[in-house]
């Protein structure tokens, strides 16, 4: 369990993390989302004590990270993939970390195999591709059998097969009762893995919600209905929570009723429908709408805005 309370980090007069409070619970995958420069990495660095908070606190399993006798057993992390010496082999890198916690050589071999690095374990890390570096980072995160796994953009540089591997791995780690936290700036990718979402922008908490709720709210675009009997259907659907709008003579956009309900009502009254489409707002659009005001590096033309978010 990670608990951040009013966590704040300032560099000079620039506030990177601003009174951020959230909890990462065991048995769940928590997606930590925000545009570039939102303060995700700084927050993660504070969790494992690389950076000291300017204000507030963050605890890992009830204590600050450095106070644990075997910190890697509490939380395994992958921050930047380049947290290795390029001249050392993958095996020697992991072994050096293992020594600090009295972890056996057998376990090192095990995580190497788990991460699919067996064939390159004796190679210098400097020759690794970005994807192999990510796998090594994940291997070192899992080395000490941690209760919490925290990964900063773990699928960066991975091929589709690797992305699937990470997704399944994180799911199984959460199912084993571990707390999993992963950061990303890609909503759609995160929604596939995460249960819970913590969304930040400019260091502030924008949303602390479940993926289901976020998807439900994002999907609140109503249902598009096409029928020749638009006026009749409109009166049949009327109700206290139902809002019906019309953009064309034979078209309705209904919110407050599901497509299923609308179809049932239409069938009951013998109204022929030509179209019945839930107007899902894409997760990415919903995420961008949420973080729009908090984007640190705004890009100018409309079609590149997607990349920036």
């Amino acid at each position: 369990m990670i608990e951040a309370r009013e966590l704040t980090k300032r560099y000079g007069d620039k506030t990177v993390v601003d009174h951020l409070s959230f909890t990462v619970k065991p048995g769940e995958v928590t997606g930590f989302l925000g545009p570039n420069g939102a303060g995700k990495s700084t927050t993660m660095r504070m969790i494992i004590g690389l950076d000291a908070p300017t204000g507030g606190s963050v605890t890992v399993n009830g204590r600050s990270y450095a106070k644990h006798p075997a910190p890697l057993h509490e939380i395994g992390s992958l921050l930047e993939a380049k947290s290795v010496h390029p001249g050392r082999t993958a095996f020697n890198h992991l072994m050096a970390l293992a020594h600090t916690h009295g972890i056996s050589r057998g376990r090192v071999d095990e995580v190497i195999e788990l991460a699919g690095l067996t064939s390159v374990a004796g190679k210098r890390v400097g020759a690794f591709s970005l994807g192999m570096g990510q796998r090594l980072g994940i291997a070192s995160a899992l080395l000490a059998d941690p209760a919490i796994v925290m990964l900063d953009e773990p699928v960066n540089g991975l091929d589709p097969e690797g992305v699937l591997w990470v997704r399944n791995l994180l799911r199984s780690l959460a199912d084993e009762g571990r707390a999993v936290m992963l950061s990303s700036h890609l909503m759609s990718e995160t929604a596939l893995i995460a249960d819970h979402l913590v969304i930040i922008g400019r260091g502030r908490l924008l949303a602390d919600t479940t993926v289901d709720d976020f998807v439900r709210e994002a999907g609140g675009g109503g249902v598009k209905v096409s029928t020749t009997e638009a006026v009749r259907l409109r009166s049949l659907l009327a109700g206290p929570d139902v809002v019906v709008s019309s953009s064309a003579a034979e078209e309705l956009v209904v919110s407050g009723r599901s497509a299923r309900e609308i179809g049932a009502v239409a069938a009951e009254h013998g109204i022929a429908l030509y179209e019945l489409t839930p107007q899902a707002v894409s997760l990415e659009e919903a995420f961008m709408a949420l973080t729009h005001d908090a984007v640190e590096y705004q890009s100018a033309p409309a079609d590149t805005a997607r990349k920036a978010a």
Partner: protein
Amino acid sequence: MTTDTLSAAPVRTTVRKVTALRVLRSEWAKFWSLRSSWITLGVSLLLLVALGAIASATYSPDVVADGGPPGGPGSGTQDAVSLALLGVTFASLAVGVLGVLLSAGEYSTGMIRSTLTAVPRRLPVLWSKAAVIGPVALVLSTVGALAAFQLGTLGLDGEKIALSLSDDGVLRSLAGAGVYLGLVAVFGVALGVLLRSSAGAIAVLVGVLLILPGLASLLPDSLYDNINPYFPSNAGSAVYALHESSDALSPGAGLAVFAGWVALTLAGAAYRLVRSDA
């Protein structure tokens, strides 16, 4: 690449708490698992042995007569030990760079994040790096100094200044060179952690060991004479000088002064390591 292996811990792993000894073991493994460690160590040993042996082999008493009063105190002094230890200055740079690479190298590569995540208390990392490289440099340099001297005695065979290991102060001088180089390696580690940049730390190392004494000669004579012996490299060379010269410290005092400089730098490194963000 496997996708079917999903469980992170098929077998429960034994994880023990972080202790000073385990950190030391980790730093030991880190040191020897880099090719650069072996190369730099080899270079410093080579400089130490080869320069000493060459200086002794090419020694000619006439040249010395031109250079200064033979046998007298001061910089003109040449004896079998000072010839054999001619390479110490060069070896000290190599050994110092080795120390810098061990510590600042972690900052330039990003390895420091992994290191400090495993050991968030941080200070044991600094002590362990010093405790690995100090003794390694000390032992190898002492061996190197002995080898340089022994090779040198072949070159000096029959010369007036020839000495043997059993002569007064010879062993102390050679061991002193080892101790000095061991401390220089620790100095390099401390500079690396203090400055967090290989280039910066190496520049300071060269400046302190080679350039500072020369620059100081610009000072007024009275001041210069008083502080000159206390400069790190001058105090250090007193540690391995066979004959105590009038303008230098005694070996014991030199050792204390140089160790003091190293301790001061280590303290600064420790402060920065603990106080600033990694």
